[in-house]
């Protein structure tokens, strides 16, 4: 098991290298000058030259790549062309906001999607099943920019139940930064007003962001549960007189959980890579917004930094998913 983990972690390094290589060379295909993108319409030739000089853009592509990799090995992600700060510092600033939002969306998706799928599978083609399927179809098909604006209009503007945007009311001070996740930091500082307010701000974006995942999860859970519930051993269990809940959760759900787990892993990975639209619409300062801004201003070090981070997150989530397989299914053993 341990040697398996070590091997996989080694593989993660290889993935990271692949990510840097691909991103770097895709970036080079774009026929645009980052100096012009950074300095704009009015920039003078000398300013452009100075900028290229400062960020090493005059050097050959290969040289630039080697310099980048050299720095990366020593843990330096380079300097952002747009913000002028260390990319690592920018990521530390923006990633926790994405983490907070995507974890909340994930929890919401799991709590809603899986039970809905189970309920639907227990009574196929009856009212609850039809309701779940229709809702799942809606949830999966409604684009975020639409549902977000609709929710903002209904829940925030019309009913005045929740705030429209941001992570915290403008009149409140964020708690001292520990994790960068507003709610958690407020808890650590025991600042209840800020905690409750940050929770209020989290509900809408997490709901909107998690809706799609919840819909997919519900459908997947329903399908795999239906399949498992039709198996002989379920009939046997029922015939033996096992309690209904035990049949559903111990016999059926546990056996249906592998495909659901696979899906959970990729959903979480997707959520953590930053939700550009949700973050933009809710003015949520996460890496999704950061990376779009960086990409439009051709800020390659920043784009590389985010891609690398997202690549690593994906690889790690996958590793954890694979390890959980062994935990859930005794037939799977890693050596």
């Amino acid at each position, binding site marked *: 098991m341990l040697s398996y983990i070590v091997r996989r972690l080694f593989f993660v390094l290889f993935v990271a290298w692949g990510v840097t290589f691909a991103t770097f060379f895709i970036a080079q295909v774009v026929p645009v000058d980052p100096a*012009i993108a950074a300095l704009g319409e*009015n920039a003078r030739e000398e300013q452009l030259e100075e900028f290229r000089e400062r960020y090493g853009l005059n050097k050959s592509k290969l040289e630039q790549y080697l310099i980048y990799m050299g720095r990366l090995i020593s843990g330096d992600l380079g300097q952002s062309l747009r913000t002028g700060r260390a990319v690592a510092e920018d990521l530390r600033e923006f990633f926790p906001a994405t983490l907070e939002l995507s974890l909340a969306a994930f929890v919401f998706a799991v709590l809603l999607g899986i039970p809905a799928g189970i309920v639907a599978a227990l009574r196929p083609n009856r009212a609850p099943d039809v309701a779940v399927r229709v809702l799942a179809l809606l949830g999966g098909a409604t684009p975020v920019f639409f549902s977000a604006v609709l929710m903002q209009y209904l829940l925030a503007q019309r009913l005045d139940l929740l705030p429209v945007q941001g992570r915290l009311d403008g*009149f409140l001070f964020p708690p001292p930064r520990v994790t960068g996740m507003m709610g958690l930091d407020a808890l650590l500082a025991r600042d209840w007003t800020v905690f*409750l307010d940050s929770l209020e701000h989290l509900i809408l974006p997490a709901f909107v962001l998690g809706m799609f995942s919840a819909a997919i999860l519900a459908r997947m859970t329903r399908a795999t549960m239906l399949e498992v519930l039709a198996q002989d051993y379920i009939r046997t269990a029922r015939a033996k007189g096992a309690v209904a809940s035990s049949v559903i959760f111990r016999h059926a759900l546990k056996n249906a959980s592998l495909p659901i787990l696979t899906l959970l892993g990729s959903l979480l990975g997707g959520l953590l890579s930053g939700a550009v639209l949700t973050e933009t619409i809710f003015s949520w300062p996460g890496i999704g917004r950061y990376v779009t801004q960086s990409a439009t201003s051709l800020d390659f070090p920043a784009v590389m930094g985010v891609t690398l981070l997202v690549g690593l997150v994906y690889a790690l989530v996958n590793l954890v998913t694979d390890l959980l397989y062994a935990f859930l299914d005794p037939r799977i053993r890693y050596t």
Partner: protein
Amino acid sequence: MQRKFQRLASLGIVLASLAVAQDRTSTLIYGGDWSDLITLDPQVSYEFSGGLITDNLYETLVKFEGADLSTLKPGLAESWKVERGGDSWVITFKLRKGSKFSTGREVTAKDVVYSFDRAIQLKGPSSFLFIDIAQLKVGGTKAVDPYTVEVRIPKTASPGSFLSILTFNIGGIVDSEEVQKHAKGGDFGKEWLTNNSAGSGPFRLVRWDRGSQVLLEANPNARLKPKLQRIIMREIKEPTVLRTALESGEIDIAEGLTPEALKAIAANPRFKTLKADSLRLNYMGMNVKPGSPFANPKVREAMRWAVNQDELVNGLVQGNGTKIQTIIPKGLLGYNNALPYKYDPTRAKQLLAEAGYPNGFEFELLTSTGLCGGGIPCQDIAAKIQSDLAKAGIKANIKAIANAEALKIYRAQNHQVYLGGWSPDFPDPDGNATPLADFAAKSLAWRNVWEDATSSKLANQGSLETDPSKRAALYKLLTDYALKSGPYVILYQPSIPLGFSAKVEGYVRNAQGQVRFENISKQP
């Protein structure tokens, strides 16, 4: 135990909401897309949002007041004079006594010297204003006594431009002692000033939460006492959300609304709206290099007759812009309101026939895939122009690419016609006249290969003239000349759409984008 906690919690919420209610009247929340913000250091910031904020953290020696950008008013300097001294201009400023920084120290001549030298040595994106345009050098600024500053710039630089540049945040005076205390390894305190302030402006910077908001608080030592205690600059990138946030009372001012939202808000008595002027010009630049159809002035003129400007401004731009045809925008000295070209495709055809194109011609219209001023996609403007030109027999093939890529082609003189925008680097007619009319400046006239001795000469004379009325006369000649023979079709001057809660008063924004926060108040 649980009940006790609940009671405590609800008491806490009540107290907190009381405090919030009190805060609301003395706090202004200003929403807008501040995502371009990268630093709040006055000598480094050259982004729009950075300017808007730092202008209220730091005072400058001279400034513009209200919406007027043609008369300089005293700032930290109570008076100033410009004299000729050998081969240079000598500009002497007399500082006001008793102006104080937020740190409590008095503003003196040594702070001015430090701030100006700092701007040059930091080589920030706006430093070319001091280094290239004003041709100011380290050591060019001297403290004669604690309240007198003398600045020397070469005869070839324009003192008028220099004084205009000083109204910008690059001319903001920092507390030299405080900044030096935080300097690290020759960075002149740049890292520290990125998210701290040390100025004498009406506000001081409390905190900047990147991507969320910037919090300013009244500077207790300021000479200019603000009416509000706090300003919160809330970052909202999405225009529809900006509108919802304004309507639900989360923000007091919304900057950058869409034309539709502006209309809807104007109809609601709880709000008011403003179309603030900008100094931007949206225009087409025609490459006049030999061999190009645009080398013939008659073709250029035909283009100007063939664009239906009224329909563009009132239709597509929905009134978020002003019709203009000359090269110096409204709001600056030298603005020329001549509008000789009216939509007339027949006349355009006739001119084309005279120029040897009786059947019209075809060209590539280069533009950006992004937004042009007034929140309108450049491609939409290009499509409108394409259909206008077609009626005069001119076929425009639109090529819309990423902004930086389009600029790269334009800057290499490889375009035929470029559609885009231009904003002057500093609020002075020279910020447009030299780049648009003087080939040697290697800016827009150069990009369009318009090498014209008359326009270059007029632009140079205008830049060096110190007498305002003589200067205005020179710019009248220049703008008339460029209107007739220049390589531009000026389209419109976009405005910036703003919505306010009806309680907000005293908001004035000049065309350079400066807003004096100290004059804004809020009714309960």
